[in-house]
C-alpha cells in the first residue's frame, strides 16, 4: 500500500517506521528536518519530504495523487483538519485518517469522509478502565471513545 504521512512526531515516526518495515511504500512530510532524525528508525527506507503538509504543491510533489491512504498527525488540530480535507476533497484520496484531539471537532469532521480519532477520549477511556476495573460499556476502545465524543458534541450542538 502507498501511504503518505504528514507530521513526523512520535506518532508519525513510529507509524512510518512500522509500515515501512512491513513492506508498505511510505512517504513522510515534516517542516522540520530534525524530526526525521529524531523520530524515524535508522532502518527507514521510505521517502522524506521537507515542507508544509497543507501546501498543495508540497503534497503534489510528495505523490499524493498516487497514494491509497493519507494520514495526518501534526500537533495542530486545525492544520490536520485542513490537510485531511485537501487530501479528500481536492486530491480524492480514498482513505484519509486525521488526528483531532478536540473531541467535538473529531466528531464534527467524522461525517465528512474523514476518519478521525482523538487522543483525548481514547486515553481517558483507557485510564478509566484501568482505574475502575472492567470496562462497563461494550465495543472496542475506538467505539467507546467515539461514543464519548458524540456525547460531548451533543452537549453543545443544538438540535437540528
Amino acid at each position: 500500500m502507498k501511504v503518505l504521512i504528514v507530521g513526523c512526531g512520535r506518532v508519525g515516526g513510529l507509524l512510518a517506521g512500522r509500515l515501512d518495515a512491513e513492506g508498505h511504500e511510505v512517504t513522510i512530510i515534516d517542516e522540520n528536518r530534525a524530526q526525521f532524525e529524531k523520530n524515524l528508525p535508522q532502518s527507514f527506507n521510505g521517502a522524506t519530504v521537507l515542507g508544509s503538509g497543507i501546501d498543495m504543491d508540497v503534497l503534489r510533489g510528495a505523490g499524493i495523487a498516487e497514494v491509497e491512504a493519507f494520514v495526518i498527525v501534526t500537533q495542530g488540530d486545525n492544520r490536520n483538519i485542513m490537510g485531511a480535507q485537501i487530501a479528500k476533497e481536492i486530491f480524492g484520496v480514498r482513505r484519509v485518517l486525521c488526528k483531532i484531539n478536540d473531541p467535538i471537532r473529531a466528531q464534527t469532521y467524522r461525517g465528512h469522509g474523514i476518519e478521525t480519532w482523538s487522543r483525548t477520549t481514547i486515553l481517558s477511556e483507557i485510564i478509566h478502565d484501568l482505574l475502575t476495573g472492567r470496562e462497563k460499556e461494550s465495543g472496542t476502545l475506538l467505539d467507546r471513545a467515539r461514543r464519548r465524543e458524540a456525547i460531548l458534541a451533543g452537549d453543545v450542538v443544538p438540535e437540528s
Partner: protein
Amino acid sequence: MYFVIAGGGQVGFHLAQALIEAGHEVMIIEEERRRAQWIQEQLGNIVLTGSADEGRFLLEAGCQRADAVIAATGDDPVNLVVCQMAQIHCRVPRVIARVNDPKNEIVFKKLGIEETVSSTRVLMSVIEQELPMRGLVPIMPLVTAGLEIVEAEIADDSPAAGKPIRDLRLPDGATVGCIVRKRALVRARADERLQPGDRIIAFTPTAAETEVRKALVG
C-alpha cells in the same frame, strides 16, 4: 446586523470598530486574555475570551443569530475551521475568511468557503496599479456574481489598439465597463475605438480572465 469576528488582532479589532461605528452589533472572540481585556477597554463589552475554533465559543457568542461570521485570525487553518464550524453547527448564512497565504484562496473555495479576503493580494493589486502596467490588474472580486473587475492599459502593440469595442474578442459574459482616457471617463459605446494609453475597466467572469487578458493585452 449582527457580526461575530474570530480573532481580535489588528484586522479583527479595526473591523469591529468600523462595524460598530456603522451601527452594527459585533462580538469578537479572542483567545488571548490580555488582548481581550484591551479590546474591552477600547470598544466596551463586546469580547468573548476563548478560541473560536471550539464550537462552544461560537455558540456562546450567539452565532445562531449572526448575519455573518468573519474569521480574521493570522492563522489560515484556524480561519478555515472557524468558518466550517459556523456553517455546520450554527448555520450562519454568510462566512468570510481572511486568507494569509494567497495560495490558500483556492483551497478555501474548494472546501466550501466562497468568500475570502487576502490582504496580500489586495496589497499586490494596489501596488500593481501604481507600477507601470503589465497586463490585467484585478481591481475587485464580485464574489456572489462570480465576476471580477479588472483593469488593463492598451499598449501600442495591444490587439485591441485602434479597434472599436464591438470588434474585441471578449469571452461570453465579459464586458467593457468604461474607458479612462487622459484622466477623463469615456463611455464604452460599441463604436468607441480604443487608443494606446487608454485604461480599460472591464467586468469578467472569474474563469475567463485569461481570455480577457488575450483580447486586451495580447
